[in-house]
């Protein structure tokens, strides 16, 4: 999860060795630059803006990909097509955005990768298709718990439904890396008056927003905060609220 244009895609490209990264990237304990082919055999990739030519059909994709991945499973691919209601002999250019994304996902999953890397897999899709796609990812993880998905998105509600861990990156730096459940359960937003706000210790909140009539503050542990400031009322924030406080709130 990241602020727009601040390196989500760069992070993914570094992982895939598409661009050079200064620090180096290790996947499955191996350096991507040294064991590139071996590692990539175990990775499935969905990129928002990059795929094969739209003048190919799903059948053509199968024919190409079976030579690309050693573990490519033709049966699995066509099963996904069937499950996602995708025609196998229609050119991709005639697919809707949702169908294109489903085809990309089927292509990424048909060689049973250990890691799925997804760059904006739900952007530009309507809520129904988005939910369908999130269900696909849930199913993929449930098939084998050793599998992992790295998803980059600015649609924060998707993360609440699917992600176990969230990394917030701002300007290329990691702001936080936490479990989703921990974030949603512990974080809180306190709405308070100016007088009350001035009584709070700076170390008790992450950031604040000054409204017209009140102050809003983001706290990392609402229980602890409530114990310390008895009269305070805390709301449950969503991921987007938290992101906005981190990135746009006053410190």
């Amino acid at each position, binding site marked *: 999860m990241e602020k727009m244009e601040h390196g989500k895609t760069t992070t993914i490209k570094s992982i895939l060795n598409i661009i050079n990264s200064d620090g180096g990237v290790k996947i499955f304990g191996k350096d991507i630059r040294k064991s*590139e082919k071996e590692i990539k055999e175990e990775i499935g990739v969905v990129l928002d803006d990059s795929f094969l030519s739209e003048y190919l059909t799903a059948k053509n994709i199968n024919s190409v990909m079976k030579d690309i991945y050693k573990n490519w499973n033709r049966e699995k691919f066509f099963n996904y097509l069937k499950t996602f209601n995708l025609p196998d002999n229609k050119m991709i250019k005639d697919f809707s955005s949702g169908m294109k994304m489903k085809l990309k996902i089927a292509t990424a999953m048909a060689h049973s990768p250990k890691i799925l890397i997804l760059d904006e897999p739900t952007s530009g899709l309507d809520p129904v298709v988005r939910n369908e796609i999130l269900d696909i990812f849930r199913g993929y993880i449930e098939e084998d718990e050793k599998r992992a998905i790295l998803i980059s998105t600015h649609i924060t509600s998707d993360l609440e439904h699917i992600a176990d861990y969230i990394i917030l990156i701002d300007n290329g730096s990691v702001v936080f890396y936490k479990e989703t459940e921990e974030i949603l359960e512990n974080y809180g937003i306190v709405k308070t008056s100016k007088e009350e706000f001035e009584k709070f210790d700076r170390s008790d909140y992450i950031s604040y927003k000054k409204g017209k009539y009140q102050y809003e503050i983001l706290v990392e542990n609402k229980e602890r905060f409530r114990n310390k400031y008895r009269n305070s009322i805390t709301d449950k924030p969503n991921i987007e609220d938290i992101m906005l406080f981190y990135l746009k709130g006053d410190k």
Partner: protein
Amino acid sequence: MSVIKGLLKKDLLNLASYKQSLLIIIAFLAIFSAFNKGMIQFLPIAVSTAMGMIVLSTFNYDEIAKADNFILSFPTNRKEVVKEKYILVVSSMILGGIIGVILTILVNYIMMNINPEFQVVIDYHSLLVTTLSGMFGITLVEAIQIPSIYKWGAEKGRVQMFILIFLIVAIITGAVFLFSHFNIGLDLDSLNTFLSNYGLIILIITTIFMLYISYKISCKIYCKKSD
């Protein structure tokens, strides 16, 4: 090698839409040469040029689909991606040359049966030289164009290529002008003897050398490239 096979398949499937156009072009060239006795030996040049140019459109397909990043997520590396394009280009030129030679013999045979006056005594050595010269010409163009495409993209690369070809023509014309201006005489007889003895081998070696240099430049450009 398997990934290269997959990438070749991807390009050939993209080119499938050109199948009809290519057949029409080849048929047109065959018919044209059937009625122009003097043109028949140039058929291999025309066919290999047509095929060599058509395969370059695979770069456009990749560019439009922004396929680069997706392709680089495969178990491959940039050098292999470049190698695949050169394999495709070289194979298409060789195939074009072979089809052209077969077509030349076929057209000559058919026309000879229809109209015995048409018969051209095919000099196979000169047919081979003509075919290889054609392939040399198209290799020169592609050896410039492919690195240009890697550097500037399929659309911009085409413009840059025309500029480069213009520069090459200008340099050659300039050299010829300087030779004649300063009365530097060339012994054409010796040159002809030299070319008929070693022309074929020079042509082959120069073609391979151009492709090799072009491949190395393309690899260097593409390996440094990051968008």
